[in-house]
């Protein structure tokens, strides 16, 4: 197959000015974020958030941590598809997915610097005092290890960019061990993030609380990852088109079709286990309440319908439809994680004791997401992520 050399980075801006609309908006957001950072560490968590003693976790956990980890699942899902199940056509999707995962987890850890009271003590659970009875300990250990694994998994792109042939050769030797280790770690902490809420049956609404929470989180992380890979490619295709070489371009459609099909199946399986969860706890009567309506909106509106749309998209080979559905499914995952951690949490309390994020919390989250987008753009315009490096043609 032909490998056209991608346009060199210098030509991508097209203009001489750095004041592109993207840069201006990102710059403003990052500037505000820096101010909020100063405020957070000068006034304390209470100075910038709406958190209180009854609602100790807000969107910095519900969105930045839970959604961040779920949407970064594309890394392990794509690696598994390509290297474990032997689906070679997914090879082109591996590096972008690993990059997204690496940035996702990096930002999760970055967001925790804001959320926990004494962030410089974050290594304590791993190195100083291991609270092994806590599921959060398991999450912390897995996220720490997986972030290291992702760094190593992404390092080939960096080594190729720097042209460090020897380092690139060595990391290539251990890549399969990293892949397997990464999948095990992902299985553990994706499910453990759900298992964290096993301890609060009295606070989480019965429609969202279930003994199967770890399974729900693990299964949904798979189609979250797949949807994210599809959605991310649709963005890259639109905004970073000249970074993609012909092979990536052709195969990305196959990746979309393959992942859409798999996601449709996984989502229907997910709905089945949700129904089983309700049946086992005999929560049927809650479905008639307002909470039940909200639950049905999540399960039907943001899982069942996207699953059907994925299936139709695959049958008609309609990539546009699949890409739009991917965004829909991603929103469904965000909704689910927010429901479990915030909306259905403390559901019995009166409205005046419930939590709603402050604008500063929301802005900090936007700031963190923006850092991710900027970092992604910076990396893919320089390193061989969306195209094959001419000197390392067959080294993925």
């Amino acid at each position: 197959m032909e490998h056209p050399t991608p346009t060199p980075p210098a030509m991508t801006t097209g203009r001489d000015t750095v004041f592109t609309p993207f840069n201006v908006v990102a710059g403003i957001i990052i500037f505000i974020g820096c101010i909020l950072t100063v405020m957070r560490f000068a006034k304390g968590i209470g100075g910038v958030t709406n958190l209180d003693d009854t609602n100790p976790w807000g969107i910095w956990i519900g969105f930045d941590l839970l959604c961040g980890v779920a949407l970064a699942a594309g890394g392990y899902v794509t690696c598994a598809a390509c290297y474990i199940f032997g689906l070679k056509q997914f090879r082109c999707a591996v590096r972008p997915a690993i990059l997204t995962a690496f940035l996702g987890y990096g930002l999760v850890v970055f967001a925790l610097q804001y959320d926990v009271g004494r962030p410089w003590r974050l290594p304590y659970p791993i190195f100083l005092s291991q609270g092994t009875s806590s599921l959060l300990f398991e999450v912390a250990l897995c996220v720490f290890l997986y972030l290291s694994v992702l760094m190593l998994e992404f390092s080939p792109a960096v080594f190729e960019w720097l042209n460090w042939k020897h380092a690139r050769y060595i990391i290539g030797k251990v890549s399969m061990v990293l892949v397997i280790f990464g999948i095990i770690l992902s299985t553990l902490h994706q499910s453990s993030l759900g298992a964290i809420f096993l301890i609060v049956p009295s606070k989480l609404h019965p429609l969202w609380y279930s003994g199967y929470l770890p399974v729900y989180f693990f299964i949904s992380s798979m189609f979250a990852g797949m949807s994210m890979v599809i959605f991310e490619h649709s963005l890259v295709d639109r905004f970073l088109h000249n970074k993609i070489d012909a092979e990536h371009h052709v195969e990305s459609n196959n990746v979309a079709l393959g992942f859409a099909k798999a996601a449709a199946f996984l989502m229907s399986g997910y709905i089945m286990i949700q129904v089983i969860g309700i049946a086992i706890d005999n929560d049927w009567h809650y479905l008639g309440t307002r909470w039940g309506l909200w639950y049905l909106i999540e399960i039907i509106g943001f899982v069942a319908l996207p699953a059907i749309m994925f299936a139709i998209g695959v049958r008609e080979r309609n990539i546009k439809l699949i890409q739009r559905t991917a965004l829909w499914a991603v929103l469904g995952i965000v909704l689910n994680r927010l429901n479990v951690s915030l909306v259905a949490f403390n559901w019995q309390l009166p409205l005046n004791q419930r939590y709603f994020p402050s604008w500063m919390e929301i802005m900090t989250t936007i700031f963190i997401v923006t850092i991710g987008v900027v970092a992604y753009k910076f990396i893919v315009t320089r390193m061989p992520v969306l195209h094959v490096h001419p000197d390392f043609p067959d080294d993925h």
Partner: protein
Amino acid sequence: MGISRRQFFGWMGAAVGSQMAFSTQAKAAANIHFTGYPGSFGVLHDISRCIGCRKCEAACNQVNELSKPETPFDDLTVLSKTRRPHADTYTVVNQFKPNDKSSPVFVKTQCNHCMEPACVSACFVKALIKSETGAVVYDASLCVGCRYCMVACPFNIPAYEYDKPLTPEITKCNLCQPRIQKGLRPGCVDACPQEALTFGNRNELIKIARQRIEKHPDRYVNHIYGENEMGGCNWLYISNAPFTDIDMREDLGITPAPAMTSGALAAVPVVVSLWVVFINGLRAISRRKEQIANEDKNQAVSAAVETEQARFKHEINQLKEKAKSEKEAAVAREVKKALEAAAQQLSENAAAQTPAPPETSGAPQPEKQENK
């Protein structure tokens, strides 16, 4: 294959070994019913005796050296609003007016010191510990500030110093652990003018509570709150009003919090061990399939090449045969032609009987004959 037997056993060993190294006693998973540390202390709160004087709050504030609140402790107007413990307030007294009661009911709220606390099992740095005295105590020097203990607590007790930028701590009642270790009673118990609070051995307190309920069945609700809630607490309550009417949840169940997460924790080593097998198995299967497919392809290709070559050979041979026979036929034809020509010449010569012509036209004749 990317993994050798030695590698495989190495990984399995590491997986099992790490679990053994990290594992503590999995009490919740075993068939053992933990009934609390023997001889551990507790407090019995007789709600029917409480008059809402807030003297316990004042004493708590004093013995724990907390900052003074804006409204003094003798101001009872704060009772009109339901409160919960916060930073600098380890205990609060709330006032309730259940429908079937003419007089208000007062309830003191603080850490219940669960026998198997959710907060302790949730803490990922062991900053919260269940002491053998019965107290759940906190070590601020380890705390990261993740606030999972606050999420986990079914009674919404731990509070956080949200306004401290660099040294925020979890705050909650510690059952006056330093005083207990000195042989003293908790500050609030000492301060209560109504003997609504009784400090002592938890087992003894349960006996006292039962006796009081038996003695005055008309006065008390027949339930010792905290005897079994969430696996049991070291702080116990008896009440003259239904517990649900005074904001004390009766739907918490009797399962201790660690039992709710022990299954998920127990799955971790199983997943680690089995995933190594499954993942390598899947990979081996997909590689083997690929290998078989390649072999099949190669076989098919070589078979096709062979038949094609055979066919080609056959065709060439046929062509060769054809060419040979055609050549022979052509030679025979030419010879025949020449012979005929010679024979004609001879007969012509014989007819003319002239000597000259045979020399010229007879010359090729011997050649042809030699060829034959």
